[in-house]
């Protein structure tokens, strides 16, 4: 059945065979640095006092001419896979198209070249956009009070837990320091709890990959500060018991923290705040399409309900009459969590993404994202093991159980996908199943792309069954570099060039 779903074309996948140049490290470009770039400014004397501290040894930053610099970095860029190059089905990462107009508008001088400490009557435009974004994220999450300041999802988790801790302390419950975290959770959850001076207890997932209510009840007690839950969870399943789960945690005196990494499945369709979640971070670099940039920058706004609102960090963006203000004074606040107002350029891109959908179309984000994930699941479910049955949300979870019989592992499948022109899915996460492959297509992929990816996966399954496994173990063969020796890198770490 593998190819019947698609029209025959000359090539099935885009397979990576582009023009790729070897490019030395810039430290290896063997020539004297060219004349320095022409810079503006005061070409005068520095003070005698400062001269006493002059640097004695040059830093040895090589310096290339402008044409060489451009060619160097353009060549490097061509060794990368990006969303603009091809499909990026990374589960729990929400790699969707990043609209170019968003890049254009954040570069307007009135948004890019402004200082956070210039007089606030000269920054009303940016503050108004941010204030509007706060309101929209409050609407989308069902949690009306916002801080835009956290710099990434993990930072948002920390800030959210700080607020929960402050609320418990205000109740005189300094003994509540236990955070319950399902074993399917992102690693940042327990790491953030530890940084917040709390300890985590892992909840074992039920047979369906969801939170097990009996397991939850067993661990809830008067030391419980919070449950951190991801919904849909990292197996791509909606926690249908969410209302009861929140009720149980609330009855035990704790808060429910929502990890918003998977908000793409719900945006415009249902709201975590309505379900009983008290506090939610939102990864705008996932749900709201701000570029991942090879590992950031992101932003992790946190939305909270009335109970946690007094503890929001400062500065806050408020509307005072007709003007907007960054407000730094608040007695009950957990205080500052970042040295700047936030990742403003990232947040503005999120504003532009929401603006493009607007109230009329926002639900189509979740709609098409969930449709696409189920379409992939449907096309692959007969040939790959599906650990948890039923419809999925925005991502689907498979394992390598069937391919294991032929000696093929998740890693081999992932690397073979590279040869076929796709970025691999998320592998070996979540940890609750063996050989996990978590696939998240997002709403911005066409059916044609989904079919090509499924065809590639089915061809790999065919190859396993035909015993044609050598190429799977060797993969990838086509890209610029083959499998890298990660053990060597970790055993003898070389992090800077010594040439």
């Amino acid at each position: 059945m593998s190819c019947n779903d698609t029209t025959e074309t000359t090539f099935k996948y885009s397979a990576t065979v582009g023009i790729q140049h070897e490019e030395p490290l810039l430290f290896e470009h063997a020539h004297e640095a060219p004349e320095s770039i022409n810079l503006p400014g005061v070409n005068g004397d520095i003070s005698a006092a400062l001269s006493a501290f002059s640097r004695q040894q040059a830093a040895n930053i090589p310096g290339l001419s402008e044409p060489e610099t451009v060619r160097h970095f353009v060549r490097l860029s061509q060794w990368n896979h990006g969303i603009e190059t091809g499909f990026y089905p990374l589960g729990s990462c929400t790699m969707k198209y990043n609209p170019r107009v968003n890049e254009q508008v954040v570069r307007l001088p009135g948004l890019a070249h402004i200082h956070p400490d210039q007089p606030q009557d000269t920054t009303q435009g940016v503050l108004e956009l941010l204030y509007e974004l706060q309101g929209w994220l409050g609407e989308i999450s069902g949690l009306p009070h916002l801080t835009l300041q956290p710099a990434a999802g993990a930072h948002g988790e920390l800030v959210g837990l700080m607020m929960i801790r402050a609320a418990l302390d205000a109740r005189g419950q300094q003994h509540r320091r236990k955070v319950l975290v399902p074993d399917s959770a992102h690693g940042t959850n327990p790491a953030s709890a530890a940084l917040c001076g709390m300890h985590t207890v892992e909840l074992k997932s039920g047979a369906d990959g969801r939170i097990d209510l009996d397991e939850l009840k067993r661990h809830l007690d008067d030391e419980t500060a919070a449950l951190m839950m991801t919904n849909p969870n990292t197996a791509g399943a909606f926690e249908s018991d969410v209302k009861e789960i929140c009720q149980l945690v609330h009855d035990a005196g704790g808060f429910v923290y929502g990890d918003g990494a998977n908000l793409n499945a719900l945006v415009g369709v249902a709201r975590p705040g309505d379900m009983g979640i008290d506090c939610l971070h939102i990864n705008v670099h996932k749900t709201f399409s701000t570029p991942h940039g090879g590992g950031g920058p992101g932003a992790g706004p946190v939305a909270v309900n009335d109970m946690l609102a007094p503890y929001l960090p400062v500065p806050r963006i408020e509307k005072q009459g007709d003007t907007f203000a960054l407000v730094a004074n608040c007695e009950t606040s957990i205080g500052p969590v970042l040295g700047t107002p936030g990742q403003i350029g990232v947040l503005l891109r999120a504003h532009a993404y929401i603006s493009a959908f607007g109230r009329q179309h926002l639900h189509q984000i979740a709609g098409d994202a969930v449709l696409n994930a189920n379409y992939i699941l449907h096309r692959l479910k007969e040939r790959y093991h599906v650990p948890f049955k039923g419809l999925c949300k925005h991502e689907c979870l498979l394992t390598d159980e069937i391919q294991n019989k032929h000696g093929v592992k998740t890693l081999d499948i992932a690397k073979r996908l590279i040869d076929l022109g796709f970025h691999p899915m998320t592998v070996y996460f979540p940890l609750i199943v063996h050989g996990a492959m978590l696939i998240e297509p997002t709403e911005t992929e066409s059916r044609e792309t989904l079919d090509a990816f499924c065809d590639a996966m089915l061809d790999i399954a065919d190859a396993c069954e035909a015993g044609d496994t050598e190429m799977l173990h060797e993969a990838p063969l086509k890209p610029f570099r083959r499998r890298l020796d990660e053990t060597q890198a970790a055993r003898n770490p070389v992090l800077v060039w010594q040439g």
Partner: protein
Amino acid sequence: MRFLPHTDTDRSAMLEKIGVSAMSDLFADIPAEFHLDEGSLNIADALSEAGIVRKFTRAAEKNRNATNTRYFLGGGTYNHFVPAVVDYIISRGEFLTAYTPYQPEISQGTLQALFEFQTMIARLTGMDVSNASMYEAATATAEAALMARRVTRKNRVVMAGSVNPRYRSVTANYLSRLDGEFVEVDMAGSGTTFGTDLDKLIAAIDEKTACVIVQYPDFYGSVYDLSPLRAACDAAKCLMVVAFSDVSAFALIESPGAMGADIAVGSGQPLGIPMGFGGPHLGLFTCKQKYLRQMPGRVCGLTSDADGKRGFVLTLSTREQHIRREKATSNICTNQGLMCTAAATYMTLMGDAGLATVARHSAAALQSLVSQLPDHVTAASGARFNETVLSFVDQEARDAFLAAAKAGDIFAGIPLEQIDSAAEPRHLLVATTEMVETDDINDYLAILEVTK
């Protein structure tokens, strides 16, 4: 909707294959009481692309910015020159739209750029190793304190009161939920005005101290010799942590590494990254080689592939949250990847000579300004890099000057109490970069004269 490729025909066909009849069936596992009516959220109506451009342009036009105003603002964010090439490189989709390079075979571009970034940052700061970024300087400072606690297995952190108050308050906030002691050494009332009193700081060190955190140049721009502190840290077996707010300084003055820092952290925003109302910026984190395995965040390392060709991977991941979970060195995951590529591109364009020119012009502009001040304004004494404190007789005099300067298209400085709430409201934190021209200084001085 222009970002969604499916037609309704596609959707129907796909639903049929899946075996459900309507989109709403895909959400049947969400209890009905939580389903929203389509279009019921209180969010603005959808905008066309032209509409988005118009809306953002109108908002941007309400903000004064560095293309129409002269900036003498610092305090951790600086108006340095951003070459066109930097923005071009980070706008390329292959850098911009890539994920974290966990699949190294198809991420060598990001990885080699990170390796080059780490190398250049280590060289500029004079340190052994650099990670592949933190969010920004304040959280990087907090992470340095946490790292020093791990390295020394002690939990008392001493911090100079001349560190940027925002770095101080974020660090204090991070540490406040953990066991241990956090001591801020107030620099007011000591022999040093708007500077760092090392004697007072050294007196606060004891055998329980994990680290001492100073800023160099400090929050007030003061440059000073750290060798007495290095000796005191050696005696107490604690780490010397050096924070900085403008890394370009180290193309001109001695680096934190040369001054003996064990950990050096700060802002890389001056390396080709626009002010952006505070972000995204770039947090730098560097340390001595021997402390590498306690470092937070991602790092890129050299290795080879199956054919023996040189390549790069993210490495030492057993320190990180996705492996070590609650025992990780930090919770950081997404960092400032693209800003590392921006900084690497910037440093490559500049080289030693360009970086030195940026730093020298920044310092020369300050010297030019300070050396011509009228009598009614005094500048803090001693060696300053590109930032200092100007003191007026009273708040009224200062604010009258600020207002007149603003009317003359000059942001003349940040009222000190806006960042340092303990400061008297008659001081002005003033910073200069290579973007300040001689004419701008003359205009600044002329306005000072007329608002006497």
